């Protein structure tokens, strides 16, 4: 009997121990000491004017295409993350004798007040002579911080085309970038893309209410396609183009696209036929 009691006591003790461990694990990231950013990759960090600030990226490597960035600013003295700062930023590409920007969003802390989030669509990779910089500036209580952060942008590591810069039939310059699914599945995936028009070398604006027609194909399988895809349509709340992408198996997929303006005119890309097995406007996926 004694051993039985002993065992029960041990059992209860163990249970309590496990329970306390798991409650530790569940501790929220949102208290003032905790860094609100987890599982992101550090791009830049600095302490200026009593402000400790960090720039993170979603992916380890900054690749040509759509990239998400996260900025946090912490007051060193109070260890508080600042929640109502206006941060200006702009990506810049410096080439021989010229410079241009890229499509990018504002940095917004709407999702998490301590994290300023935004994206940039890099149209090209940097190299020894040509390079990207992220210009960031903000002010807190009259103290302003301004920095140009050099960044390395490389071609997509998987070698897939996920960004298209092109001139449409309307003679406009467009940038179309793949956003999601970031982890494609054999399923009907929720697909996102962004579409920008180049107003000049430094200004890009979101194109609204066009249609991006989608026809995913597997060139290695006799141009097999999939059912129940949905063309991408503009969502004015998010600024993204949203659609549905079905993939019936893993492997290499070419997402053939056509860009249609509000009048339904095709500005870029071709319909897929026996004679014309792929469109000049496309993304690539391999998983």
């Amino acid at each position: 009997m004694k051993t039985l009691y002993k065992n029960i006591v041990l059992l209860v003790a163990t249970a309590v121990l496990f329970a306390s461990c798991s409650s530790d694990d569940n501790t929220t990231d949102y208290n003032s000491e905790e860094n609100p950013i987890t599982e992101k990759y550090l791009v830049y960090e600095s302490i200026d004017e009593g402000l400790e600030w960090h720039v993170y990226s979603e992916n380890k490597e900054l690749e040509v295409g759509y990239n998400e960035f996260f900025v946090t600013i912490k007051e060193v003295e109070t260890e508080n993350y600042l929640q109502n700062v206006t941060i200006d930023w702009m990506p810049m590409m410096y080439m021989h004798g010229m410079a241009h920007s890229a499509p990018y969003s504002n940095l917004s802390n709407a999702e998490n007040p301590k994290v300023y989030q935004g994206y940039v669509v890099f149209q090209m990779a940097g190299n020894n002579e040509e390079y990207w910089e992220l210009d960031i500036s903000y002010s807190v209580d009259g103290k302003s911080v301004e920095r140009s952060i050099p960044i390395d942008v490389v071609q997509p590591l998987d070698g897939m085309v996920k960004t298209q810069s092109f001139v449409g039939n309307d003679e406009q310059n467009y940038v179309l970038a793949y956003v999601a699914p970031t982890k494609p599945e054999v399923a009907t995936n929720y697909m996102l893309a962004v579409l920008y028009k180049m107003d000049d070398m430094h200004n890009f604006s979101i194109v609204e209410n066009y249609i991006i027609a989608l026809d995913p194909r597997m060139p290695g399988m006799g141009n097999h396609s999939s059912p129940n895809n949905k063309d991408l349509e503009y969502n004015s709340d998010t600024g993204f183009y949203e659609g549905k992408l079905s993939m019936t198996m893993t492997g290499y997929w070419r997402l053939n696209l056509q860009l249609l303006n509000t009048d339904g005119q095709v500005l870029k890309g071709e319909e897929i036929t026996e004679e014309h097995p792929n469109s000049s406007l496309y993304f690539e996926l391999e998983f």
Partner: protein
Amino acid sequence: MIQSKQKPCFGLVMLWVLFHINHIHAQQRPDSLKPVSLKEVILISKDNSYIKQSKPLSSLDALLESSKNVDMIKRGAYAWEPTMHGMTSERLALTIDGMHIFEACTDKMDPITSYVDSPNLAEAQVGSGQQAAEFGNSIGGGINLQLNRTGFASLGWTGSVETGYETNNKMRVFGGRTSYSSTDFYFDATASFRKASNYKAGGNKEVLFSPFTKYNASFNLGWKLSEGKSLHASMIFDEAKDVGYPALTMDVSLARAFIGSLSYEQEKLWDIFTNWESKLYFNNIKHVMDDTTRPNVPIHMDMPGWSDTYGFYSKTNLVKDTHQFLFKIDGYYNRALAEMTMYPVDPNEALMFMYTWPDVRTTNLGLFVEDRIFFTDSYLDLSIRGSYHNNYVADEFGLNSNKIFHPDMQQSKTRFLKSLSAKYYNNLGDFQWNASVAYGERAPSVSEGYGFFLFNSFDNYDYIGSPDLKNEASAEASVSISFSKPRFEVTADANFFHIYNYIIGVPIPDVSPMAHGADGVKMYENLSYAQILHTSLSARYFLSDAFTINWQVAYYKGQDNERENLPLISPISFKSSLVFVKNLYNASLTMQGAGTQSKFNPKYGESETDAYTIFSADFGKYIFFDNNNLLVKVGVENIFDKEYSTYNDWSNIPRMGRNFYVNLTFSF
């Protein structure tokens, strides 16, 4: 009884297909209320019928084909698929010793009848329509393959070795069986091996990719625990390797099954029930399709499949006044998973992978009750089955794949299946008749419910399952009339099925097929109804004590709701044989054929199949040495080397040309 010692008893010439002479037996018995089999029984390994089989070592497939209710679809020389009344395996209940087993191949290359061999089996019980409801939910009927157990027969050691050779495809067969039995213990062990090369169609045309190799071993054990109580165990291992399927684009590198069971039998239960039998079983099947031996494959594929089943049943009889009841509860849990990996021509590209069966778990629980009510010269069979049937897609990847076609499908789908049947038998002396009406339901098969890009080379379409199909239901009526005199007997049968919510693939436009060169994609859908009629007429004339003439002709008709022909429905077919049996000798001459298949349907990939007639002959003799005997059988099939194919040869692949064979069976 010395006679019972594993020796052929020639006095009692048991007829191979027993169904229509059951009544004659009943008359001979002192107690005319003795139960008579509901089902047609094909004897496979009962010794006193052995000499009657034209080819004792033929595969189970060939034996099943001899049933007048069973036809076999052929995709090559191996693993034929049984059909009844023009209905294939998803509309049938196929069991081995009462155990549910489900194929592991998405392309039906491994019907469950391919996982046993004739030395394992005593008989095949063939039930037409809802007469097979005891075996499970079905529309067309069922086949139960009964294992060959020696039982507590007190025979000591017995055994046999067998060998055979066939010239056409150089098939070698070796087999053996040894048994020990006493009053409270028995043990059986069998082993067989078959190896065949490519076969040759008529005109000596080699059919490439048609070889096979098959190993089979089985063990049975039984202990009598006390009087009237016994425990039985059985295990079958079957493995086929390098099986060619000339009608398909892929072959099979491995098809392997483990089939095991443990059962408890008790003669009496609570003084009212008799023959109480309960069984626990499992089986595990692995099937690997492979195209590495084929030339010019556009894209190399691996297609393995697995099917594991765990199940039980418990049944018992109750005899009360003129009622004879059978109560049975049964259940099984099956896991079906199949995948396809394709290797891109560009080796740098990622492998292409999909689940063709998305790990579907099927749970089925059923209750079956049958009551046979005896009257003077007649009896009535009433039966009822109710089943709970659930499908659950266990794999998230597979579920998401299915959702591409069916965005609103649920992970789990439950159905209730019902079966009702009434059959009346009447014996008016020379004249016997029976008639039945029945209603039955079935759930869609795994392929019909959850298949994902299953390529069907017959109609050249990829098939997609539909999880929310309605249950298929059948209202059937059958009538059989026999007239028998000492010198002859004539039997006419008719079976009619009106099948509601008939499940069949319907083309879905604008969906791109996966298979190279496929014409499109079909999705399984319910037609509002389809109808199948199967009639046959058979006669037997006893010329003398030794000579018998058998004659049989069958006619089928199958139409959908738009009066279009259903696929795989036989044209008019006939079979006639002259059989000689005298003392230790046996011989037969058989003519078999079919009319032109004019009621084909190109929509399902069918083309017209020409009429044919082929002839076969065999001769057998028993030779005795003391207590041992040797059975020698020689024969020739397709004597005139006719090049032909039948309506159920996949893609009209030609059948075997002239084939000489010899079978030797030595029993001790």
